[in-house]
């Protein structure tokens, strides 16, 4: 591997710190030259060492290293003249070298290795002495184009030191070695889980050095965009099968960005130079290789060499040469391209919103219509309408359809009633779908009195299906979003449903039928909508059964979202505020329109199954009429072929029209190292992603089979994983009193335990089918950040929280108290606790709470005066009340998404329903006949043990 192997006898390479290139010296004569003193046949007959596969990891750096070398490191540039200026003192031979160089860029040519010393071996040659350190320093300072990740640099410094230590040239190359995850086995039996680990980042992606062409820290996506259940890719499917670990991508590509979380906005590439591979259509990304002097790039997925577009190095705005290494697509994993017309079927359409509002007696009485109308009215300015093209339509529905004509210039809306529900038609060809800006006065006046208009109607019945069809007819030509708000079960017209919630079915194996759609109308209609780029959001306000399972079909296949407000009553201010807040956030959401998602991956990897809200249009294409922010998708992967190469690349592309009328492609690229070792796979497993995957699988299973099956699936998969780990990784076969798990999966059993006790999957006959179906909707759509607390709630003790908790920290962010284990052992009789799962906040008050505490928090004289239930905490003039309020407020805005949790006060000795609901969140406890965490571990351990005997 040393330099001399490639050089003819008697030659030596020396690093010239000034010109950043090697100078070759013939030792006998002292003659020096810049050209590599090789034989002409060099390229065609590489030395045997070079074909040895042992040094794969280092290879990818050479092209860039060579570019540097060719151009004296003065920045990549196509024009040699400028180069000479950039590198003063560069000898004239440099020109000759440039001409000679290109042969080394030929793909697959062993000659690459001739330049390995540029990074790897130079320190091993003691002859260079003091020159080396400064030369590295210079390398690091190429105007921010540093070619190596920092850790690699550190590695080299390390090597250098060893070189100085006189180890000589026989020293093995550190660079050739693969970094591995360190696996620590921990025992779970008898241990209390450390819940703070739930926020820990996934295991690192240990990419080979120089996998990326730039040293940007953003070449891998934030886990909130995309994460994989394994952070290293197995090389064969048989290895994956053997390991029993799931392989799936968990992603929320249209994640919202909040400055409070320190999220960076997605970099936008505005010059519409979109370099894509000709064969696999992958977008250029930080993991491609530039070859042939940078004129071509080699696709990192299929290996095809593609031409670099002419304008790639050209700054079109300023009309001058641009620095290629500063291009955003080579520095960022998540980028957005502005798409030219080739990516459009039609010019970008305006955002369109059609509101279908239930105005039956029940809806009016609950106050839903009034709150909804007021919220829409107040949000009119927040609805995305940057270019004043947004269109809006309002349809009120009870036993007949009420359309509103909102002509431009009118200040009053006129109502048109259609009572034919079987064959829906639009009463008027124009003015029903109107421009929001132009018809603003009419819209405002209509929304102002919508609730009063139907105040006296006593119609019972809801023709929701027909109204949806009408809305679809209305906006179908453009596409857009239908927002349906209904307080009653649709009973008339198309898609009429029956109250089928037979309590006898609950808790039996037939319960899963209640989780499936009752009517095929909602599925076929969803397909119609998807075809016409229409999405449906469902807001359900049930006081009785509304068949969430059936109605949520529409959002599921049109990429919408379902929201449920059980027992909604607007006269309770909490209900009204919660709905108004969430609804206005939904309206203001910067949606993407007419979107398709496609995931591409390196050769050998295939997407095998998809979970989430969308319609699968072909084997690998997901159609989303509207992309909501912060929705999660899970994509299972399979390996069709054995994977060669030291890393693989997965790329998600989402082509969409922004609500500001631009066609864009958001590309998320992720590289993963490959491994053929089962222990490395276990060391790289991401427990949060695996839990998300298992959640989606379990919900799917509960619909296709039964809830019992779904719970068993989770436990069996966990048992399988842990038994493989025990037998193949820890190699401690036979019975033992311990349950061994790798350190990075130590919370997975806890999450699985919480999942089987989650309201969406829990055993029991007391969960209303609506709540279960809604919980399942959330389980399959929440992104990890919200999903994990939804499965495994947070539990804080407030009465004895540390002094800094509840007050703003140094950075102005409210500090939360330390999270406790979810067990009632932690509840104290005199204490005040908070349990939250992102959807609800429970404030638990112990019955021996001192009056002072009650006074401070609730402004009531004693515990006896306190009433449980939905409430708003008063903000009082004392520090403790302010801290508690701070914590509640912080909890509400802790996560991305529209949800605003209710606060419930739970008294420890009253209201058994509320109390048991709150206690059901303490998942480490035993509840009814559901096992505690310790018992669950024993169950898992027995499965691990039984697998051993097989």
């Amino acid at each position, binding site marked *: 591997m040393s330099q001399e192997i490639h050089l003819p006898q008697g030659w030596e390479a020396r690093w010239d710190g000034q010109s950043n290139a090697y100078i070759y010296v013939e030792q006998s004569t002292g003659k020096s030259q810049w050209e590599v003193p090789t034989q002409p046949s060099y390229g065609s007959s590489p030395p045997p060492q070079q074909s040895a596969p042992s040094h794969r990891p280092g290879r990818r750096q050479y092209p860039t290293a060579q570019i540097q070398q060719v151009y004296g490191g003065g920045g990549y540039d196509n024009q040699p003249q400028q180069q000479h200026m950039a590198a003063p003192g560069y000898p004239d031979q440099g020109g000759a070298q440039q001409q000679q160089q290109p042969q080394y860029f030929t793909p697959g040519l062993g000659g690459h290795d001739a330049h390995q010393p540029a990074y790897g071996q130079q320190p091993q040659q003691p002859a260079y002495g003091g020159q080396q350190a400064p030369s590295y320093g210079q390398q690091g300072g190429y105007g921010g184009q540093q070619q190596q990740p920092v850790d690699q640099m550190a590695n080299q410094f390390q090597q250098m030191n060893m070189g100085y230590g006189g180890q000589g040239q026989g020293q093995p190359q550190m660079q050739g070695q693969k970094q591995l995850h360190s696996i620590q086995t921990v025992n779970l039996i008898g241990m209390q889980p450390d819940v703070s680990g739930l926020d820990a980042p996934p295991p690192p992606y240990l990419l080979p050095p120089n996998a990326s062409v730039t040293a940007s820290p953003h070449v891998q996506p934030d886990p909130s965009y995309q994460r994989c259940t394994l952070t290293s890719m197995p090389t064969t499917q048989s290895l994956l099968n053997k390991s029993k670990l799931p392989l799936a991508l968990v992603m929320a590509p249209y994640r919202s960005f909040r400055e409070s979380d320190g999220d960076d906005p997605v970099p936008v590439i505005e010059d519409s130079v979109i370099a894509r591979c000709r064969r696999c259509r992958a977008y250029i990304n930080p993991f491609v290789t530039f070859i042939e002097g940078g004129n071509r790039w080699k696709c990192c997925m299929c290996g095809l060499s593609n031409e670099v577009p002419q304008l790639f190095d050209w700054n079109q705005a300023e009309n001058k040469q641009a620095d290629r290494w500063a291009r955003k697509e080579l520095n960022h994993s998540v980028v957005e391209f502005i798409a030219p017309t080739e990516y459009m079927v039609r010019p970008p359409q305006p955002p369109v919103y059609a509101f279908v509002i239930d105005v039956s007696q029940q809806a009016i009485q609950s106050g839903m219509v009034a709150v909804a109308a007021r919220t829409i009215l107040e949000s009119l300015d927040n609805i995305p309408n940057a270019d004043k093209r947004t269109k809006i339509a309002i349809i009120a529905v009870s036993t007949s359809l009420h359309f509103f004509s909102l002509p431009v210039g009118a200040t009053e809306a006129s109502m048109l009633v259609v009572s034919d529900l079987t064959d829906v038609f639009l009463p008027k060809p124009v003015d029903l779908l109107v421009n929001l800006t132009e018809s603003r006065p009419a819209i405002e006046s209509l929304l102002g009195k919508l609730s009063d208009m139907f105040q006296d109607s006593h119609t019972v019945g809801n023709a929701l299906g027909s109204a949806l069809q009408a809305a679809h007819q209305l906006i179908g030509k453009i596409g857009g979003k239908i927002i349906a708000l209904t307080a009653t079960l649709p009973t008339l017209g198309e898609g009429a449903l029956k109250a089928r919630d037979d309590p006898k079915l609950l808790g039996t194996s037939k319960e899963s039928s209640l989780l499936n759609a009752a009517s095929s109308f909602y*599925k076929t209609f*969803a*397909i119609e909508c998807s075809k016409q780029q229409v999405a449906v959001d469902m807001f359900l306000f049930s006081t009785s059964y509304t068949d969430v399972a059936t109605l949520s079909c529409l959002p599921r296949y049109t990429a919408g979202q379902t929201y449920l407000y059980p027992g909604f009553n607007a006269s309770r201010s909490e209900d009204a505020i919660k709905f108004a807040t969430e609804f206005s956030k939904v309206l203001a959401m910067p949606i993407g329109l007419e979107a398709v998602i496609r995931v591409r991956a390196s050769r050998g990897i295939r997407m095998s199954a998809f979970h989430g809200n969308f*319609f699968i*249009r*072909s*084997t690998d294409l997901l159609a989303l009429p509207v992309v909501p922010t912060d929705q999660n998708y899970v994509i299972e992967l399979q390996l069709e072929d054995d994977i060669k190469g030291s890393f693989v690349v997965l790329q998600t592309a989402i082509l969409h029209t922004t609500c500001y009328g631009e066609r864009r492609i958001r590309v998320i690229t992720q590289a993963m190292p490959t491994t053929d070792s089962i222990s490395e796979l276990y060391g790289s497993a991401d427990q949060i992603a695996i839990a998300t995957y298992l959640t989606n699988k379990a919900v799917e299973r509960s619909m296709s089979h039964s809830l019992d099956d779904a719970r068993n699936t989770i436990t069996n998969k966990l048992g399988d994983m842990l038994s493989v780990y025990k037998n193949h990784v820890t190699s401690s076969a036979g019975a033992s009193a311990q349950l061994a798990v790798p350190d990075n999966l130590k919370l997975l059993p806890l999450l699985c335990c919480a999942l089987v006790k989650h309201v969406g999957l829990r055993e029991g006959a007391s969960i209303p089918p609506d709540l279960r179906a809604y919980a399942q909707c959330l389980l399959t759509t929440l992104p990890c950040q919200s999903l994990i607390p939804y499965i495994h709630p947070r539990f804080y003790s407030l009465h004895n929280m540390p002094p800094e908790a509840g007050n703003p920290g140094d950075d102005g962010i409210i500090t939360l108290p330390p999270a406790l284990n979810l067990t009632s052992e932690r509840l104290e009789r005199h204490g005040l606790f908070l349990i939250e799962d992102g959807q609800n906040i429970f404030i638990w008050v112990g019955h021996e709470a001192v009056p002072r505490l009650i006074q401070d928090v609730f402004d009531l004289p004693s515990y006896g005066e306190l009433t449980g239930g939905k409430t708003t905490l008063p903000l009082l003039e004392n520090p403790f009340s302010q801290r508690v309020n701070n914590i509640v407020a912080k909890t509400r805005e802790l996560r991305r998404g529209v949800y605003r949790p209710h606060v419930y006060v739970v008294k420890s000795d009253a209201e058994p329903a509320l109390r048991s609901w709150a206690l059901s969140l303490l998942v480490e406890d035993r509840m009814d006949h559901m096992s505690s965490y310790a018992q669950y571990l024993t169950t898992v351990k027995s499965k691990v043990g039984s697998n051993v005997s097989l």
Partner: protein
Amino acid sequence: MGGEGWLFLFAVLMAAVLLFTMVFFIIMFSDLECDYINPIDLCNKLNQFVLPEMIAHAFLTLCFLLSGQWLAFLLNAPLVGYNVNKIMAKNHMYDATEIFRTLSGHKKESFIKLGFYLVSFFYYLYRMILALISESD
């Protein structure tokens, strides 16, 4: 040619038709896999043929029952039962939203049916020839 001969001649033709239907199904499924057709069109197209195929098969089985061809009837009865069961459970139609999840199952089913129709085709042919020979004797 007597009744038995005519019956089996009819059965041979029916089996051939059913055979081709299954070939058509399988071709359509592989088209879907190769992305030549979108799932909505596929389901619209195939769903037109699902019930006719089941009815044709059930009718053939009924003919065997009425004409007392017990062996041929017993051969076909399980498939009729299976089809009826599917219709009762209302999952006989192809669902565009689920098609990719269930595609492998559908393909397997179509292949098994194809094999079954092929076997029955030759069986009917054999019985037809047998009937013709016994008549001419």
